[in-house]
């Protein structure tokens, strides 16, 4: 009984995914790209980096990277705490 409910829920969810994929905009032409065009045009003169992705990661969106480095650090602290008794 529980399995039947699970199967029905999965089928509903997957059909929702299929419908949304059919209704997506066509692949290869983004609708809004003003911000990215600004980045492509001005990243070189504003940050001096040839690689636009790096200039976004570390300059325009530095706070994202800070949070992400903190997540990595916290994970490693957690793993060290988990294995603390073993590695002694």
């Amino acid at each position: 009984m529980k399995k039947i409910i699970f199967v029905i829920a999965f089928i509903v969810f997957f059909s929702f995914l299929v419908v949304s994929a059919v209704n997506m905009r066509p692949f290869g032409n983004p609708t809004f790209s003003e911000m990215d065009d600004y980045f492509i045009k001005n990243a070189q003169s504003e940050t001096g980096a040839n690689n636009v992705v790096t200039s976004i990661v570390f300059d325009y969106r530095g706070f994202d990277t800070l949070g992400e480095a903190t997540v990595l650090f916290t994970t490693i602290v957690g793993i060290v705490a988990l294995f603390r008794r073993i590695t002694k």
Partner: protein
Amino acid sequence: MIGNFPYFAVILLIGCGIYILMFQKNLIKLAIGINLIENGINLFLITLGYRKGAIAPIYTQAPSGQAMVLPTPQALTLTSIVIGVATSALILSMAMMIYKHYGTIEVNEVRRLRG
């Protein structure tokens, strides 16, 4: 329809991940399912930023006169990949500790053995 093929790859990955999360009881398989969902999301983000016939947004010795793909989804995908590595490392460590304590990694047997 055929132009939307990358989106179908994305929903195939996400569907496989959800299926594994719903119907499997093994902790390693659950970790594989979570990784599949995460890779589907990363592929979806990259797909959203693609422009037809464009090159990567790097100016070093690029071919001239070509459009560039959107750089912001790529930067956010980079963040997402590193967080995925961190979470899967934590999940696998937890699975190892559970195996050490209970001697099994089947989810429904873990509870029955020793509270």
